[in-house]
Structure formats: structure tokens, C-alpha cells
């Protein structure tokens, strides 16, 4: 026992055990049990195996270059145990990455060639490390004689293969500009290469009397400085090129650029936000909608309305849709005078959106549908429907004199930061804020509940031309059913389907305080 405690190799193995326990403690405390833990463990054990391999590779060239360094005997003796630790840590990495993340051998057919090449590199390296670990005992050293050293020189091949493996797959090695691990690894590798190059220079000098004062070592230094300078240069590429993430980094940058330039917006509108899910999809797809209603529609009588959507390029009916604010389709109906508003959601029946409703009085009605075919962006179409006898009524609403109005139990105020301008609204630079109070007590309403995944829905219709905008709050996160908000709700209009025109607009804003859904209507002027 005493001899064991004095053996440095025993201490190295104990340290390895402690490191493994530390990794489990760290990962266990950081993420709940499950696949995320597997990923973290795979990554940590992989990095640790590389670290231990680096130490065992560094010992010889370091002491050869600096023979006066202390503890040479102990460090050299500990090297075999360090190599054995590499094998143990590599096995842990194998268990979590190959069998845990990639599903073992049965997962191989699902992987592309870059993965298979990287795995082949690490698999070969593991076989070499396993051979070295199994011959790391004094008995095997004596038994193998001169072959032991030859066998153990394969560690350099294993090192090269593992560096390739890490460069190909390692998340930490894709980008020198942002990853501290990549930076440290780059310099550590440079130091090792420099020391090994010194050994080569020394060998050339000894065997062939070539005085290599500026030999391979100088080449390595020049290479390292050159590469470092390239990565540090402002326009330099920070990616290591061969890593499977390198292409991703480029694509991600392009995606970010295209997201900010989409629709020509340069404002602070975040088109990646969940509220703009309706804008993600094929922007070139076009659809036609066939609208059907009975030939004669009478006021106050139930009427069945149906919409069928067709792909304009193929003519096929569309059967698959994404939900927009919790519904597959939103139907807004207003009358010609713009004093009637209805927001309903038809059902999808036998390939058509169908709804039964009743329209209150004779006249012309305007119908607007919003829907998002699967894979395309959100679509919007308008129709008209004549009910009973259609007269010559026209919207005659004048802009409100007051910005505060009462709707049943609630008093609603409308504020804008500045007079509304069509050009500003079109690019999302102006907002409309509604403040809701209890009409009786004047108390601020703070129990607004989400209605259709938002704390408010605002429809804006221009009196001249019946241009239609369906607007949602600028708070882009979809609230949970239990979330509450109030007393203010701020809407961010955008000219998504074309510029917003100046004119008089009727606003219909839906709010849901304490589950009492109501519509607040205003008439405003947009310059």
C-alpha cells in the first residue's frame, strides 16, 4: 500500500478518476438527465482525452528542448499512466458520443461521408491507444523489448488522427474567432509542433551534419505567426475550413443578412421572431381562393360561407396549412359603412374552409381571409358579399375627436408617439398603444388574457379602397394561456403586403380582460 501511494502513476490514475467524477458532477448540476447530458458528457470527455494525450505527447520534446526543467524523472514515469488515462477518457467519449449521440453501429447508415471519415479517424486512433494502454505495464515493456518503443511511436499517428477528428466534428474547433477552446488548442498545438520540429532539426544536425539553425522549427514559428495574423485580421476568415460547421457559419451569416434585408426593411423589426412565423416560407408561391355563398343572402338569416384555396401554379387544392395565431384561417367581415365588425374562424371541412354566420342588415359586406399554406408565407385575400338590397351607402366615419372612448365596462385610450404617417407605418417605425381602464372605477386593467395567442388583435381598414391590415402586439413572444397583461397593449403595423396608404382608417381592436372579449373601434387619420 505504501509503495502504491509513492507511485506517481497511481496518483495520475486517481486524478483521472477525480476528473471523471468532476465531469459527472458538473454536467449533473447543469442540465437535467437526458440527451443534453449525453451531449455535454461526450464533449467534456472528448476534450479531456485530447488534453491528456497532449500532455503525454509534450513530455519528450519538452524535456529534450529544455533539459534543465525539473521533475524530469517523475514526469516521464507518469507519462504511461497519462496515456492509459487517454484510453479511459476516450472510452467514455466513445460511449457517450458514438453509442449515445449517434446510436452506435446502427446509426452509421444515417450519417454522411464527412461523419464517417471523422469516425474512422477516431476509431483508428482508439485502436492504437488501446494497443498502447494494454502494453503500458512493466511486464509488457520487458516482454516486447525494442518493439515496445516502436509500437508506442504510433501515438503520433493517433495524435494526427484525433486532431483531424476534432477539427472535422468538434463544435469547439470550428471558429477561431469566437471559441476560446479553439484559441487555446491552436497555441498549444503550435507549441507542440515547434518542439517536435526542434527535435527534427536536432536529428538532421546529428545524423547529416545539417546545421538547421533556421530549420523546421523556424518554419513552424513562421506558419503559426502567419496563421494567427490571418485570423486576427479584421477581414480574415476565422473558420478552420474543414470543420463541418464551417459551411454552417457562412450560411448562418448569409441567413442573418437576408433576414435583415427581407422586404427591404432596415428598421429594427425582427423578422425571425415567432410573431413573424407567417413570413417564413416560400415567398414566391401564389394561391387563388374560390369563395362560395348562396345566391341570395338575407339579413339576419344563417348563411354558409365557404373558401377553397388552390395552388395557383398547379391548380391543386391546398390541404395542408400552418396555424397563424392558433387558427388555420382568420375571417374578418365588415360592412360598407365600416360600423360592423366580425372576426371568426371557419372550420376545415372536406378541403374547404366553411363557416355559418348571420349578417345583421342589408348592404355590401367586405370579407378578408388570412391563412398560411404549409411551406408558404401567410396569405391574405378579400371578397365582397351582397346581403339583401344593396344601397349606395359608403363609409362616412370621420376621425375621432377624442382618443378615449368607453366600450361597455371598459374605457380605452389610444396613443401614438407622433402623428401617424403612412411611410413610417409601412416600415414598422410607428406604433399604436391602447390603454384599458375600468370605466366605472378608472382603475388600470391588468388582467388582460391572451386571445388567439396575443393580448390583442387589431384590424385597420382604410375607408377609401378598403385596404386591410391585421396587426398584432409588438411583444413578440407568444404568451401562455395563464399569462396576464395590461393596462397597455402596443401594436406594430407593417406594410407586409405592400405600402400602407394615407387616408382615414377604421380601427377594430379586440381585447380580452378577465375573459370578457370586447372590440374597441376608433377612426384615425394617417398622413
Amino acid at each position: 500500500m505504501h509503495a502504491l501511494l509513492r507511485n506517481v502513476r497511481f496518483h495520475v490514475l486517481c486524478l483521472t478518476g477525480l476528473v471523471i467524477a468532476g465531469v459527472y458532477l458538473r454536467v449533473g448540476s447543469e442540465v437535467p438527465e437526458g440527451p443534453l447530458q449525453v451531449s455535454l458528457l461526450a464533449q467534456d470527455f472528448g476534450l479531456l482525452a485530447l488534453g491528456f494525450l497532449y500532455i503525454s505527447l509534450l513530455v519528450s520534446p519538452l524535456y529534450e528542448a529544455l533539459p534543465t526543467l525539473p521533475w524530469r524523472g517523475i514526469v516521464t514515469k507518469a507519462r504511461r499512466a497519462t496515456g492509459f488515462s487517454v484510453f479511459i477518457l476516450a472510452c467514455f467519449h466513445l460511449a457517450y458520443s458514438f453509442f449515445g449521440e449517434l446510436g452506435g453501429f446502427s446509426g452509421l447508415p444515417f450519417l454522411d461521408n464527412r461523419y464517417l471519415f471523422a469516425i474512422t479517424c477516431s476509431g483508428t486512433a482508439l485502436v492504437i491507444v488501446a494497443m498502447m494502454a494494454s502494453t503500458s505495464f512493466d511486464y509488457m515493456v520487458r516482454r516486447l523489448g525494442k518493439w515496445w518503443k516502436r509500437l508506442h511511436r504510433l501515438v503520433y499517428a493517433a495524435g494526427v488522427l484525433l486532431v483531424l477528428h476534432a477539427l472535422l466534428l468538434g463544435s469547439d474547433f470550428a471558429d477561431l474567432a469566437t471559441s476560446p477552446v479553439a484559441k487555446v488548442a491552436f497555441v498549444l498545438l503550435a507549441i507542440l509542433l515547434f518542439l517536435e520540429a526542434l527535435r527534427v532539426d536536432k536529428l538532421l544536425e546529428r545524423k547529416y551534419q545539417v546545421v538547421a539553425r533556421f530549420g523546421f522549427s523556424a518554419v513552424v514559428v513562421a506558419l503559426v505567426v502567419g496563421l494567427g495574423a490571418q485570423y486576427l485580421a479584421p477581414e480574415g476568415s476565422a473558420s478552420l475550413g474543414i470543420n463541418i460547421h464551417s459551411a454552417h457559419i457562412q450560411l448562418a451569416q448569409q441567413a442573418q443578412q437576408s433576414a435583415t434585408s427581407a422586404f427591404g426593411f432596415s428598421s429594427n423589426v425582427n423578422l425571425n421572431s415567432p410573431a413573424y412565423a407567417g413570413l417564413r416560407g416560400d415567398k414566391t408561391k401564389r394561391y387563388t381562393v374560390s369563395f362560395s355563398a348562396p345566391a341570395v343572402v338575407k339579413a339576419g338569416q344563417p348563411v354558409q360561407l365557404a373558401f377553397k384555396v388552390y395552388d395557383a401554379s398547379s391548380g391543386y387544392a391546398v390541404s395542408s396549412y400552418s396555424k397563424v395565431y392558433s387558427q388555420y384561417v382568420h375571417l374578418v367581415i365588415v360592412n360598407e359603412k365600416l360600423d360592423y365588425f366580425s372576426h371568426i374562424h371557419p372550420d376545415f371541412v372536406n378541403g374547404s374552409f366553411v363557416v355559418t354566420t348571420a349578417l345583421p342588415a342589408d348592404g355590401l359586406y367586405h370579407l378578408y381571409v388570412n391563412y398560411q399554406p404549409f411551406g408558404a408565407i401567410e396569405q391574405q385575400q378579400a371578397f365582397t358579399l351582397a346581403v339583401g338590397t344593396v344601397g349606395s351607402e359608403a363609409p362616412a366615419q370621420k376621425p375621432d375627436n377624442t382618443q378615449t372612448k368607453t366600450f361597455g365596462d371598459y374605457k380605452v385610450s389610444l396613443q401614438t408617439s407622433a402623428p401617424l404617417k403612412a411611410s413610417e407605418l409601412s416600415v414598422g417605425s410607428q406604433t399604436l398603444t391602447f390603454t384599458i381602464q375600468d370605466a366605472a372605477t378608472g382603475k388600470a386593467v391588468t388582467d388582460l388574457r391572451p386571445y388567439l395567442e396575443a393580448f390583442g388583435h387589431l384590424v385597420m381598414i382604410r375607408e377609401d379602397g378598403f385596404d386591410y391590415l391585421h396587426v398584432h402586439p409588438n411583444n413578440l413572444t407568444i404568451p401562455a394561456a395563464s399569462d396576464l397583461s395590461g393596462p397597455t397593449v402596443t401594436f406594430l403595423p407593417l406594410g407586409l403586403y405592400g405600402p400602407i396608404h394615407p387616408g382615414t382608417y377604421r380601427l377594430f381592436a379586440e381585447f380580452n380582460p378577465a375573459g370578457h372579449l370586447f372590440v374597441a373601434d376608433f377612426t384615425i387619420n394617417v398622413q
Partner: protein
Amino acid sequence: MKYLLIILLFLAPSVAQAHFLERDGTIGAVLHIEPGDAPVAGQSATLFFDLKDTKGKFQLANCQCQIILSSDGRVVSQQPLTDNAATPYVSYTFPAAGIYQVELSGFPYVAGDFSKFDLKWQTRVERGITTSSSNKGGFLLWTLLGAIFVAIVGYVAWSRYEPRKPRSRH
């Protein structure tokens, strides 16, 4: 050196369930997330899907594929996965730190092209950091590492070549 490495490792953030192969039937996909498989709240992240069908029938152009991102069972984003690059991707800005589920599901436009599939991953989103401070930290680390490299190369070069001259006279 060994302790330095261990300390560095414990400081290194590594968060996404990246490089995880998820399979359903004959279709499998590996998820990667930029930046660095470690998405940060408030910063745009791009999710890449390395898709492969062992039967070779799957083509993204023939698939109604969608990505659903959710947190605590609440959907935060739903978007189609289109054939937009060699490795198809979607972009999203995670609104807050936490654990998110990434779900990729798809079925063919024409029945029988391939079987429908549903793949799920998890990713942890770190809380946001400011870009300026990370750049500053990056430069400091480069300077420190560069100084270490120069010191080692300088010391080794000096100790190797200088003491030789007196020895050769004996």
C-alpha cells in the same frame, strides 16, 4: 498544464444537444446550431439539419417538413423547412434562456414517396452576452496566448543555441 486544461474545460460553455442523431424509420437527421452549437438568447441562431434516408427516397423538395420550437410545452415558433441549402436550415432568435425542444416532422406531398417522420432534440439556450465584451475578451485571450507562445519559443531558442558555443571549445 494539466490543471490549466481542466480549469479551462470547466469554464467552457457547451450546451446544445448538437451532433445528436435522431431517427424515425428510415430517416435520420443530425442537428447543428450556429453559433458554436451554443445558442444565446436574443441573438439570431441558425439550426441546421443533416438529413439522410437510408432508402435514398427522401427529398426535401417533396416533403412538407416543419420545425416546431417549444419551451415548457409551449410552441414559440413553427416554420417550414425548405430546400434552401445543401444542409437545410431555419433561423430563429430564442427569446429567453432555458431548455427548448426542437421538433422536425415531415410527410411527403405524394403518398408513398417516403414514410412520415418525427424527430425531436433538446437545446439549452444561454442567457445573452454583449458582443463588445466578448470581442474584448477574445482579444485579451489572443494576446495572452501569443505572449505564452513567444516566451516559450524565445526561451527554447535561447537555451538551445547560446550554451553550445562555450561547449564546442572544449
